[in-house]
């Protein structure tokens, strides 16, 4: 039996999944339209009896037979540096990785790169594209240029940069939109990552007009040490909780001269370099405001100082002495000290240090983050917990990625390209050696449930439905068009019950763990049995077209699989679905002929059940 399965696996890898139909004469016929290459007659002749036997006996789909759907026959040859470095760790573990099938790849790369399910046509065209040497590379390039690429990665960065109008930070809707717009534009134009970071750290101006100034406003603890902690988490991938106080305070000094002042526009605020502490000086005024900072408690009359000039009775003269608590020295996270120059914004000094090519922390963090986003796990794991006692699973690999990023002038798309084109990214999802070492060294592509936004977008794309997104903050900036995809929502305060239930990030801290994709029963109640999902399916014009009663069953099944699973069905799946539905009692005339089995009739609700089962399958719900 093992040998037989091995043979099935070998041949099916060659021909891929195709459609098998029973002909009028009862013979199985192979419909080769779904094939990347036309199988030889000999291969078909060989397979027919094998599948016929499987289908006749109703043999359950074995693990190996099922794996054929997900794996490719090609043996990965590690030619690229990434793959050689990964192989250097896997070979000693005795692991020979397997590549994923084209069907798995087209779905995976769409979901990972643009957060959007491929259409049935996109999946079919890719699977049937005969250019096997280049088609994966070409698809990657095409996806990196799509509009959804910017939407989806602005969503990911929105989690890190905490783009949310209210709770726990009052960023305000207009500012959240400006922040998101800037981030999305930076991604769309492939702004070099060093400039991206620098602008976030050093911009000044209105929160409504200069998007990146909101980096400092979207922090819960806006004191210098709180800002330093947020900067370290965002750009160094490190948590400051365990830092010695001296180190954190030294870094905090760079952020001790940031001022915030209101304007006479409601909720507008300027972020600026405020070396003299004017924005914290009591009784200083701003347009439309009585005072920027609240006045100090009135001193007892007999202690009132009389040094204030008569012309400006309420405003003391502004001198550097007005901010005597401002530190003069600062310490970089690497331990080197600097005296803050009086004529330069300390944020600028810090940013210059941060983005120097020699600074290993900066490139390491983003390389590791990007790897983790695409492969589900960082080379340093968790990706925002970089520290000396949490070493990378493959240091040479991480160093390689860092060098690639720096030598290519912080071009993030270059990094996307080399990772996505690697054999490593294209590994099979089947984990054959379930050891921690295999997982940490990327022996297979890890299963991950689709992010909340990606999942609801996929459900809506398949059914043609839409969801209502609302914000509890009643401002015009939160108007959402009906067909808005969830991945393009600019502001974490704009939400829906679905997004909350499926663990969208609360965007309170910027930590990776804020997004929670772990399964809970309430999510299953929703997917399996809610009126929301049921209604989407029952009212779906897309599904109605596919399930048109005038169409043949195999064609309906094929279209459902391409639309939902992004692949062709296997013969076993066709057989399983074929048997589902109402068993038609044999007609009296036919009953005389015992050889003729009762036929199965499918009503619309049976087809809906098939679509329901596909939407509730782990293969649909999980990135694989």
């Amino acid at each position: 039996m093992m040998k037989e399965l091995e043979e099935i696996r070998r041949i099916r890898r060659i021909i891929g999944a195709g459609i098998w139909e029973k002909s009028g004469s009862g013979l199985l016929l192979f419909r080769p339209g779904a094939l990347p290459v036309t199988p030889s007659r000999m291969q078909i002749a060989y397979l027919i009896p094998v599948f016929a036997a499987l289908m006749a006996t109703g043999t359950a789909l074995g693990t190996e037979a099922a794996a054929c759907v997900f794996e490719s026959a090609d043996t990965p040859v590690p030619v690229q540096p990434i793959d050689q470095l990964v192989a250097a760790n896997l070979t000693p573990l005795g692991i020979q990785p397997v590549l994923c099938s084209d069907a798995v790849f087209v779905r995976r790369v769409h979901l990972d790169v643009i957060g959007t399910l491929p259409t049935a046509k996109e999946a079919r065209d890719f699977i049937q594209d005969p250019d096997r040497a280049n088609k994966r590379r070409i698809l990657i390039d095409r996806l990196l240029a799509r509009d959804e690429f910017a939407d989806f990665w602005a969503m990911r960065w929105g989690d890190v940069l905490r783009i949310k109008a209210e709770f726990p930070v009052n960023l305000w809707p207009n500012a959240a939109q400006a922040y998101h717009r800037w981030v999305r534009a930076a991604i769309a134009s492939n702004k070099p990552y060093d400039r991206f970071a620098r602008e976030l750290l050093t911009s000044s101006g209105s929160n409504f007009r200069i998007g990146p100034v909101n980096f400092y406003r979207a922090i819960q603890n806006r004191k210098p040490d709180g800002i330093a902690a947020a900067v370290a988490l965002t750009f160094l991938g490190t948590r400051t909780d365990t830092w010695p106080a001296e180190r954190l305070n030294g870094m905090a000094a760079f952020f001790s001269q940031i001022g915030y002042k209101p304007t006479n526009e409601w909720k507008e605020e300027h972020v600026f370099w405020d070396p003299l502490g004017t924005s914290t000086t009591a009784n200083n005024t701003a347009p439309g405001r009585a005072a920027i900072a609240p006045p100090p408690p009135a001193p007892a009359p007999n202690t009132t100082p009389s040094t204030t000039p008569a012309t400006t009775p309420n405003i003391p003269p502004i001198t550097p002495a007005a901010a005597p608590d401002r530190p003069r020295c600062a310490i970089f996270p690497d331990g080197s000290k600097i005296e803050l120059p009086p004529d330069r914004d300390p944020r600028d000094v810090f940013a210059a240090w941060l983005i120097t090519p020699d600074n290993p922390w900066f490139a390491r963090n983003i390389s590791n983050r990007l790897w983790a986003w695409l492969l589900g796990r960082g080379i340093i794991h968790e990706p925002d917990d970089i520290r000396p006692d949490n070493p990378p699973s493959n240091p040479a690999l991480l160093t390689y990625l860092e060098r690639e990023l720096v030598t290519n002038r912080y071009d993030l798309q270059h990094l996307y390209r080399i990772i996505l084109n690697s054999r490593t990214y294209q590994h099979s999802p089947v984990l054959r050696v379930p050891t921690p070492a295999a997982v940490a060294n990327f022996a297979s592509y890890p299963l991950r449930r689709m992010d909340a936004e990606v999942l609801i977008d996929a459900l809506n794309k398949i059914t043609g439905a839409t969801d209502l997104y609302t914000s509890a903050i009643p401002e015009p900036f939160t108007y959402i068009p009906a067909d808005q995809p969830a991945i393009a929502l600019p502001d974490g305060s704009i939400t829906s019950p679905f997004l909350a239930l499926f663990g969208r990030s609360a965007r309170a801290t910027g930590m990776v763990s804020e997004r929670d994709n772990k399964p809970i029963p309430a999510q299953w109640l929703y997917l399996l049995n809610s009126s929301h999902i049921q209604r989407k399916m029952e009212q779906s014009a897309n599904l109605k077209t596919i399930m048109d009663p005038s169409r043949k069953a195999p064609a309906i099944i094929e279209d459902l699989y391409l639309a939902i699973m992004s692949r062709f069905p296997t013969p076993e799946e066709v057989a399983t679905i074929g048997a589902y539905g109402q068993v038609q009692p044999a007609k009296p005339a036919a009953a005389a002929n015992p050889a003729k089995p009762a036929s199965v009739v499918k009503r619309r609700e049976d087809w809906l059940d098939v679509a329901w089962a596909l939407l509730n399958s782990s293969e649909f719900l999980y990135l694989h």
Partner: protein
Amino acid sequence: MKSRIHPTPATPPGLNLNAGHAMNRREALRLGLLGTSGLCLSNMALAAADGPPAVPGAATPPIHARAKSVIQIFLWGGMSHIDTWDPKPDAGSDYMGEFRKAIPTNVDGIQLGELFPNLAKQADKYSLIRSMTHRNNGHETAAYLMQTGHAPGERLAYPSVGAVFSHFKSPGYKGLIPPYVVLTQPQGRFSEEGFLGPKMKPFATGGDPNAARFEVEGVVSRGIPDARQLARRELLVKMDTMGAAMAASPQLAASEEAKKLAYELILGQGRDVFDLTKEQPELRDRYGRHTFGQDCLAARRLVEAGVPYIVINYPGGWDTHSNHFNTMRRQCPQLDQGLAMLLQDLQDHGLLETTIVWCCGEFGRGPKVDWQPPWNGGRNHYGNVFSVLVAGGGFKGGHLVGASDKRAEEVQDRPVYPVDLLGSIYALSGIDTKARLPHPMGTEAFVLPAAVEGAKSGGLLTEIMS
């Protein structure tokens, strides 16, 4: 029944957050507070009154935690207090509006507004707090205050009382139904789970318990009979190609486990809890054949199933800026019928002793009627003083706590702040209000704010705890 009214509370010393205001027993006696109403003071409060002066952080008085479940009837929008549970017949029509009468109850000295004849027969089962206050008149901020005890505008978004119950009670809870259930619609004024995350979100049933079939969202679905439910579940198993290929995957195992629990609700015993047709029709009639009445019946069934925290968000709400008196005429009788029957039925089932019922809005409504357009005889938001009904689970019945002034405009006696009400509910349920809540950034966060954080307190409701 003898009146057991507390014009002034015994300050509960161990929990007095305004250190220095605690009276010892001698002072209390000198002021005559213990004279006629001395018998009303709980032994515990008396014992504690002789103890050392209260300081924040001092030992909690030994409150006997007996509540296993809580039913919160949230009169969102804010129910008028002067028309209902704090009538002031002497205040004149500018205040009393169309409801001039107060009616007696089965407890001497407690009167209710004229629209509550059923609750009037049950006054021995509940106590009324007539001095609830937080002085906040915004729906969102007041709802946040009343459901978290924390001041709105703090940097952290605290979880609601239900989510806190969910957090502390989940580990020992083995029921099929989620530990924090909302009948039927979530209120959505703020994110109830706060920083505890989506796992602590309430399970909102959706559907209408007064309909022929209570279609609980995700549990009881429209038009899918069990046979089809079973058939497609089987189909789902058969079509699981990826599950067959990756049988060893821990991710898929976790997902299957969650799915199994969901199916126990869909096809197992869990859904029976929501099946109100299992009750006698006569009993359903007595609850009232309206959504709120049947909400109350569903809540009792959830209590029987062991669910720790149940919220009934009053269908339609009470935000009666205009058309106030007509709305009250329509809604109060339903509230009266459902709530009175719930208390009676909980007692008949022996559940009242272990079930806290509390009922109030996020605030009351202005006691002075606004006759001007556009309100034309409406009442607006009012957080200075309003009323709360508490019963069961260790709360004594037949008492009044505090009082409003003669026009129900300000607290006259014994202010009760959100931390006092919530603190008492937590205490009777065995939840330590000083316990730390897990925060994703490791920030220190506690169930209730402490006095040092400036939270106002009038002390726990020990005078009505048994």
